[in-house]
């Protein structure tokens, strides 16, 4: 069994946890206290910048620039949000919907293409399989920087510059996605397909009716990772989107900063708006996100 399969198997996970508990049993009290103190202090320091961003977004302009900085807005106001959402030149709602549309379509495209490609790579025998898989994995080692200039020209030739298509499609060929789905398909028992093949089902219906329904957790994890990556992407949208009304939220916030360098109340309100969707996803689906990330490491 591979490490990835073991991580993915609930039985193995609980076994690991049980081992952990057994070890904890022998840990001296002072060590437990020390661990909680260390982790607690670190956690408090760690999360306070995010809390301060949230606090500041409910401050007035003067309060946000006040010394000493305060942790409670006085007065509490939603003025920054109202200003940033209504001011001309900062179409935050449009940026928000651009980001949402792009991230949803992008992650759907990643999941569909990666799942389709991973299936034959995991389950069929054909000439060239090893070569295709090898090339795809090898591109994980290509530093993204060499793709920037040529892709800009390719996107330009396709007429996609300054449109959302430019941030939905070119980054969707995810080598990690193919690897991730292939690894999951490999963990499904082969008997499922053999039975269906003998019953005369073709590959397409096996894929749709047997493999995909079993793969929902893996697809959800991949979709989530692709969504987060696309929502947060910065360099590419900054350079390929130039009109205010096609920008994504992160790229828009970048321009907002140069225009409102000292309006930290506005900047923090914008940052909060950009954070809310990803933080909500994280709070509710952190198991999937963290599992996906740890499997990213186990591919080594």
């Amino acid at each position, binding site marked *: 069994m591979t490490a990835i399969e073991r991580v993915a*198997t609930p039985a193995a996970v609980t076994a690991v946890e049980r081992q952990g508990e057994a070890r904890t049993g022998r840990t001296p009290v002072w060590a437990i206290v020390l*661990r909680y103190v260390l982790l607690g202090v670190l956690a408090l320091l*760690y999360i306070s*910048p995010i809390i301060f961003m949230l606090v500041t977004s409910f401050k007035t302009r003067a309060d946000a620039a006040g010394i000493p900085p305060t942790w409670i807005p006085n007065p509490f106001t939603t003025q920054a949000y109202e200003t940033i959402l209504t001011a001309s030149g900062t179409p935050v709602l449009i940026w928000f919907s651009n980001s949402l549309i792009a991230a949803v379509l992008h992650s759907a495209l990643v999941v569909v293409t990666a799942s389709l490609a991973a299936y034959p790579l995991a389950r069929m025998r*054909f000439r060239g399989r090893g070569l295709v898989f090898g090339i795809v994995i090898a591109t994980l080692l290509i530093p993204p*920087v060499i793709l920037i*200039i040529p892709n800009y020209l*390719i996107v330009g030739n396709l007429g996609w510059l300054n449109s959302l298509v430019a941030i939905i499609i070119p980054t969707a060929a995810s080598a990690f996605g193919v690897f991730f789905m292939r690894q999951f398909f490999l963990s499904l028992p082969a008997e499922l397909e053999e039975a269906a093949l003998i019953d005369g089902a073709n590959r397409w219906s096996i894929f749709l009716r047997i493999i995909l329904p079993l793969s929902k957790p893996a697809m959800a994890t991949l979709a989530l990772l692709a969504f987060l990556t696309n929502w947060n992407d910065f360099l590419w949208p900054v350079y390929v989107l130039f009109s205010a009304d096609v920008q994504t939220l992160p790229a828009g916030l970048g321009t907002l900063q140069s225009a409102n360098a000292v309006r930290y109340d506005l900047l923090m309100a914008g940052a909060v708006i950009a954070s809310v969707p990803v933080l909500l996803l994280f709070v509710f689906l952190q198991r999937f996100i963290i599992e996906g990330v740890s499997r990213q490491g*186990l591919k080594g």
Partner: protein
Amino acid sequence: MSTQTRVGAFATEAPTAASDGAAARRAGVSPTRQKPFTPWLFLLPYLLLFTVFVIVPSVFGIWISLHEWDYTLPNKPFVGGENYVELFDPNSVNSGSFWTSMRATAIFTVFSVPLLLVLPLFVALLMNKSFPGRNFFRAVYFAPYVLGVAVVGLMWRYLLDNNIGLVNYYLGLFGLPDDTAWTTSVPAAWVALVGVTVWWTLGFNSVIYLAALQDIPAELYEAASVDGANSWQKFRNVTLPGLRPILTFVTINTLIASANMFGQSYIITQGAPGRETRTAIYQIAETGLRNFQMGDAAAMSYVLTFFLMVISVIVFWLFREKKEKPMPQEPSAAREGALR
């Protein structure tokens, strides 16, 4: 969770249908039934994207770098290696700013990578044992990573503000210098950029380490205890060898991420002071996509890639060297256990 139980249910029903399953299995996953183009139909959408946006550009980039390729000019004359030669010619326009940016990337990488290898390991070790609240702490340390660099950058630009920032205020409370220009002077800007990056991405490496730590068989620790090993000896002889394959991945991954640092510099310092903190990828993007000197920018990106590859090879070599040294039995078993 539910997948596993459903797979189980399926598998128990399966044998009736696959009563002559042995024959089917010998035929593999039935290549006879499969039309030769079926796998390629499945691969088609992905390979289309992959070819157009990964394979073609990685070759097209070389072509661009061999031309005087200005987006705004109709002619793109072939200049051979001139774009590359210019980068090494101190009198050329782009050479100085390029090497300043390469130095910026190098400084950032040299300071951020060791911290991002060691601190996340420390956090992962603290969380390796199962205890109430572990998942909560794991989530807290990981949370900043889900925020994008734009949010992280804006947040820290505010916190690091010379005059009204929280960082200088608290430093002052502790009687430390409270007027450091974190975003506009070096070396303070480097401390800020590295610090913010560590804060932002520590959780990512921690999670990978934690998964690897959980994969080291408990028996190895028990055996070490029986042999009278103390905590340090266990760490040295069981934990570290067990982590070795993951360390290669984390090192390369962190190196490439650090070498591609862009957003922090773009938002927090805006390259200031002067162009001191403008990183290589920032310079490449500005040269190619703002000034449209794409031939020069493409050449720069290959020079950067060349350095990255050399460093990656060195990392692989370093980690392989260590593997070849004679090691005690248990750790090598741990290594195999940790990966495949």
